[in-house]
């Protein structure tokens, strides 16, 4: 059994490596790694978004802030400039200081409405300004409380790594098993396979193994090159294997119903996009409809996130759910391949 599987695995691997579409995907993924590593800035908020206009006699605030390391660009010379600056960049906030140390008056210029949370932040930052002015350390004046154990702040660019892992697992498994099936239908080699002692499980598993191995190589290269070595290797490997297997089986389930890529395209790509919604949600948190949590790739993304940037979340039951789903998907895929793909024209 194992020998037969290895024989088919080698065959499928060779075919995959000779497939130009396969290399297109690999190159795309490598480009993405390059982008993460070299192009996306480490901190997206590199610049201080405060625009300060010190309208006091002695310019005490201005001096204090410049002394504290604030860039001169953040110091403006008139109220109009502040308003203009806020208008141009809605992310910035204008602060106009008047009066004296004894009776300071702050005017805050901002874009749109402010919610209570933002108001608190502004209060805190004004207190911070006051302490800069008076030279006293008032950090005790406010306090942050963390609900979870505090995770080290994640550099912004690294948060895209889990989404890239999910992306790879999705495309390779879901789409490529279908492409393989179409190729075999077109050249007729599936008919040759049908009159051999090779069976359905070998057929599915050898392909799954190809995508899993590629997934592991890609996934580990990606993570080691960007995040480093500080994560649970075994858990990452397990999740890549599970994710690749699950999406290969799902891809097989869909693939058996079509004969070529153009027939498959509308349905296949729609399903692929649906399964990418969790990726979109994680990149743009504003877009997170409730149903997203039911998409398997959501859970896989959650697990990847937790492996690479642990927050102490317990994901054992989530992992178990994915295992269960993978088993169910395999059974469905096996039945469909056995009774449809292997019985075509019967």
């Amino acid at each position: 059994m194992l020998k037969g599987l290895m024989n088919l695995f080698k065959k499928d691997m060779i075919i995959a490596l000779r497939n130009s579409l396969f290399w297109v995907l690999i190159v795309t993924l490598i480009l993405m790694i390059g982008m993460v590593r070299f192009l996306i800035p480490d901190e997206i908020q590199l610049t201080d978004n405060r625009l300060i206009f010190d309208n006091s006699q002695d310019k005490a605030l201005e001096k204090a802030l410049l002394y504290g390391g604030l860039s001169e660009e953040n110091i403006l010379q008139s109220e109009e400039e502040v308003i203009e600056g806020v208008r141009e960049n809605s992310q910035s906030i204008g602060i106009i200081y008047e009066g004296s140390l004894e009776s300071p008056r702050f005017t805050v210029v901002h874009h749109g409405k402010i919610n209570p949370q933002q108001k608190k932040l502004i209060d805190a930052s004004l207190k911070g300004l006051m302490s800069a002015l008076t030279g006293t350390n008032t950090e005790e004046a406010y306090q942050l409380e963390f609900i979870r154990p505090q995770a080290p702040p994640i550099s912004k660019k690294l948060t895209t790594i889990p989404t890239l892992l999910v992306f790879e697992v999705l495309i390779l498994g879901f789409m490529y098993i279908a492409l393989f099936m179409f190729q075999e239908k077109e050249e007729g080699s599936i008919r040759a396979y049908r009159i051999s002692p090779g069976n359905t499980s070998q057929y599915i598993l050898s392909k799954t193994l190809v995508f899993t191995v590629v997934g592991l190589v890609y996934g580990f290269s990606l993570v080691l090159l960007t995040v480093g070595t500080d994560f649970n290797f075994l858990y990452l490997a397990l999740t890549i294997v599970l994710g690749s297997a699950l999406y290969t089986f799902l891809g097989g389930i869909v693939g058996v119903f079509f004969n070529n890529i153009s027939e498959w395209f509308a349905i296949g790509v729609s399903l692929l996009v649906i399964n990418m919604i969790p990726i979109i949600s994680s990149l743009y948190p504003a877009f997170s409809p409730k149903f997203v949590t039911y998409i398997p790739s959501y859970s896989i993304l959650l697990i990847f996130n937790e492996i690479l940037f642990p927050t102490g979340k317990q994901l054992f039951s989530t992992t178990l759910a994915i295992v269960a789903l993978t088993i169910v998907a395999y059974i469905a895929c096996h039945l469909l391949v056995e009774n449809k793909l292997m019985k075509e024209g019967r």
Partner: protein
Amino acid sequence: MINVKGLYHDYSGKGKYAVSDISFHIKKGEILGFLGPSGAGKSTVQNIMIGLLKLQKGEVSYDGRSVSRLDNSFYNNIGVSFEHPNLYTRLTGYENLKYFAGLFKVPTRDPMELLDQVGLIDSANKKAGAYSKGMKQRLVFARALINNPNILFLDEPTSGLDPTTANKIKAMIKKRQEDGCTILLTTHNMFAADELCDRVAFINDGKIVACDSPRNLKLQYGEKSVLVELQEGKEISKKIFFLDNEKDRKSFNEVVNSKNIQTIHSQEATLEQIFIRLTGRELA
């Protein structure tokens, strides 16, 4: 060894039978030829026998075991050469044989040796997708032999091959038979059928019209045939008359009386001529 009885097959499900009431048997070590024109139903019968098509009606059995009850291990013992080459186009000729061999749980043959025998050794490392039609056909034939099968199904193994290559393939088929292999050979080439087959089944419009050894068929249907060369104006034409056939005898008499005869030979009919006589249809 192989028994086929009352086989029908309807592709469309509308009661239009591609083959109907097909019955024959093949003894162990025998080569049975399926001879008939394109579209007669030869491949359909073969595909039902190897399980690629569903057995809708009738019975196919191997040593008494129905084809519908056979499991995957049955395929360890059979070899199939397909009419339309179905190879892994992205694998080389050698890889096609090697990985196909890996599917079997019985001893298999050396791919290189087989490639050599079918004249593909020089193209062993070329991708099968880049092979010519004839090369693909030979590779599919070689693949059918990879597991030393006891039963061979050969669908048009020599069609489209040049005579020298076709002879190579025929010699290999003969050799398999000497090793005890039972063979169903489908063809529309009567020379191949005549040369190789112990018995030939004529198949036309989905039905078997005759089934016997080439010799018996000739004795039965072709014994008294006469080949006449006629002068008609400036044209010279050839005509065959089966003297057992009343209509033929009548027209032969007319020809003799017309005195246009150039030459006249009594001759043994070819399988093709017999086929035409039985079905009113040419093989090609």
